[in-house]
């Protein structure tokens, strides 16, 4: 799927055929994708798939062996680094520095002046409920709190593109929800967000498009809804009361927790099956077209090569 055909819609990031090898092993092998402004893009794959290496090449922390990366329409420069926000996978801050000083210093390196950095930091700390901890040293904060501070560092300078590597690891459910809401806010402001994670199901609800990689290669790329529907097995989920007899068009029944999955034959659509079920007179509590989870799709795509 192409996003942003119009000239005004500059791509937030464009990656062309990048390759990176370590000790003759290709960690990233000929990867290409693009991220549009105003979308949340999922970079997903198992551990060791090459996600972090890809991100580091996008951030110009390491150079690709071949291929190129364009950020906001140009090669990454000192000036355009100010428009990027980055949350690395392994987190660290100056342990002896206070939370507020850490945020202000790292924000100033993104080109913010001290005054507005402090103002914005206070606003964000207040928003995340961290304001009472702002004078504490980083070493005095819990892992989850440090993570929130790092997340604030990634977004305080109002970046056009935010790249987050495993943003939810170490966060409790409350903070996870908070951070997710902030992602959606960023997208709604027209920013591009790249989420990299190996916990594929965690980002299903957030991502507009995804790139699934395995062993440094792209295995799936595109609109999440379309991918899901193309991998849909022809089956429905049903929770009902009553006696379900033979239903024409159903070739298999699988019992799951709380529901039954009806596998349909090729000529039967879910709509037809619903009509037939209603006509049998059973009480239907839930009827749903079964869509596979990203995890299931991944396992299907990678097959036995994985594990």
């Amino acid at each position, binding site marked *: 799927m192409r996003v942003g055909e119009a000239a005004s819609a500059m791509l937030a990031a464009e990656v062309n055929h990048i390759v990176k090898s370590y000790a003759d092993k290709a960690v990233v092998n000929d990867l290409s994708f693009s991220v549009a402004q105003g979308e949340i893009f999922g970079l997903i794959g198992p551990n060791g798939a090459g996600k972090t290496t890809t991100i580091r090449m996008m951030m110009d*922390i*390491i150079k690709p062996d071949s291929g190129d990366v364009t950020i906001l329409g140009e090669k990454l420069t000192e000036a355009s680094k*100010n428009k*990027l926000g*980055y949350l690395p996978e392994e987190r660290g801050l100056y342990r002896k520095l206070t939370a507020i000083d850490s945020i202000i210093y790292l924000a100033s390196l993104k080109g913010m002046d001290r005054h507005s950095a402090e103002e914005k930091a206070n606003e964000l700390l207040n928003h995340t409920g961290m304001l009472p901890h702002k004078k504490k040293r980083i070493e005095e904060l819990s892992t989850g709190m440090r993570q929130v501070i790092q997340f604030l560092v990634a977004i305080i300078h109002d970046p056009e593109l935010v790249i987050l590597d495993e943003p939810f690891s170490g966060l409790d459910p409350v903070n996870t929800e908070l951070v997710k809401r902030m992602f959606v806010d960023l997208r709604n402001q027209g920013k591009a967000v790249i989420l990299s994670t190996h916990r594929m199901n965690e980002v299903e609800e957030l991502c507009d498009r995804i790139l699934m990689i395995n062993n440094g290669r792209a295995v799936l790329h595109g609109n999440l809804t379309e991918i899901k529907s193309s991998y849909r097995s022809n089956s429905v989920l049903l929770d009902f009361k009553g006696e379900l007899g033979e239903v024409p068009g159903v070739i298999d029944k699988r019992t799951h927790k709380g529901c039954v999955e009806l596998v349909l034959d090729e000529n039967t659509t879910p709509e037809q099956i619903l009509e037939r079920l209603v006509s049998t007179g059973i009480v239907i509590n839930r009827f749903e077209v079964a869509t596979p989870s990203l995890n299931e799709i991944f396992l299907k795509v990678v097959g036995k090569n994985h594990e």
Partner: protein
Amino acid sequence: MNKTLLILRHEFLHTIKRRGFIIMTLIVPLVALLAMGVLQLISGIAEPPVAEEVTIGYVDKSGGFEGYTQQDKVNLVRFDTQDDATEALVEGDIKEYFVIPPDYISTGVVSRYTLEKQLEAPADIATAIRNFLLSNLLADKVPAATVDRVEAPLNLVTTRLTETGAIAPEQGGFGNFIIPVVFSLLLSLSIVFSSTYLLQGLGEEKENRLIEILLSSVSARQLLTGKVFGIGAAGLAQVVVWVISVPILLSLASSTFGGFISTIQLPANFLVLAVVYFILGYLLFAVLSAGIGAISSNTREGQQLIAIFTLSLFIPLWFMSLLMLFPNNPIWVVLTILPITAPVEVMIRLGVSDIPAWQLAASIAVLVLSIIGILLLTIKVFRTYLLMYGKRPKLGEIIRSLRSG
């Protein structure tokens, strides 16, 4: 503000707030004070007779040694026999005695007897005995003024002239030697501490991966430049504190030392060269530390590697006494030009003798070229190896990455 300046400011403030830095800044003047105190205590113990009179005995078997029995603070008492003298010594009437044998005139041998265990006769006692013998030997043969001169024949006053024959403004001597030595010691200490801070800072950022956030905001060049100059400024501030506080503390502690300091004339070019060599010396070690910080897998390993270089920095101080004895040996020229030893060697040599202009020029040129060369190499390996941690690159890998950049 420029990003390099932001990093510089942050590193400066971060360094001077470190507990280790504050302790070091305070402890050096205190240690100097303590060392002076210990020195005075020891020299005080070594020369107690200056204050009190001492009585020693002698037995004259040669004859003719009767007068001049009061030598400064030493009072000489004549005994007829050695047994009498020994008895007086055991009784504690005299501190020691000596025997002038009958053949003294032909051999010069004098036997000394004491209850104390000593390395050698105390200088004041030996001088007293010597002057007592001299005065008695020369009595009535030469005028009294000649006797005085024979006792102290040489009071050498040296004046250094310039090439035009005028009196040189800078006269040399120990007074002028002590400041360069103290300064070079402070300089090496500060260089060692500063490069350790740089190494630790890089190590911390590398181990906790803050380096990724930093490099996503600034370039490796900005990061390195800011760090090197920020921590360097902190090191300079430390030296300034030392240079100001040490003389003040010392003159407070001892008026004699304070008086000595006021007599010191510094060579005119010394201050300029001191600042130049401090900056160049620090920069050399800073870029070395950054390079080592980049390739070493953790802070401890980095510190072991940099220790090889910091030990070399102190080489001129080890050989200082040889330099004082043989100031014109060509080995000093080598140490002056070798970049790692140059900062300290030049400081010490300035205190001992003059350094030809060509040697200074060569030394500064080699230092500057080394700094630039190591900096360029460091920036090249920096990006590759800062992201590796827990694994040290092999030499071959480093060379390969230098080639590919």
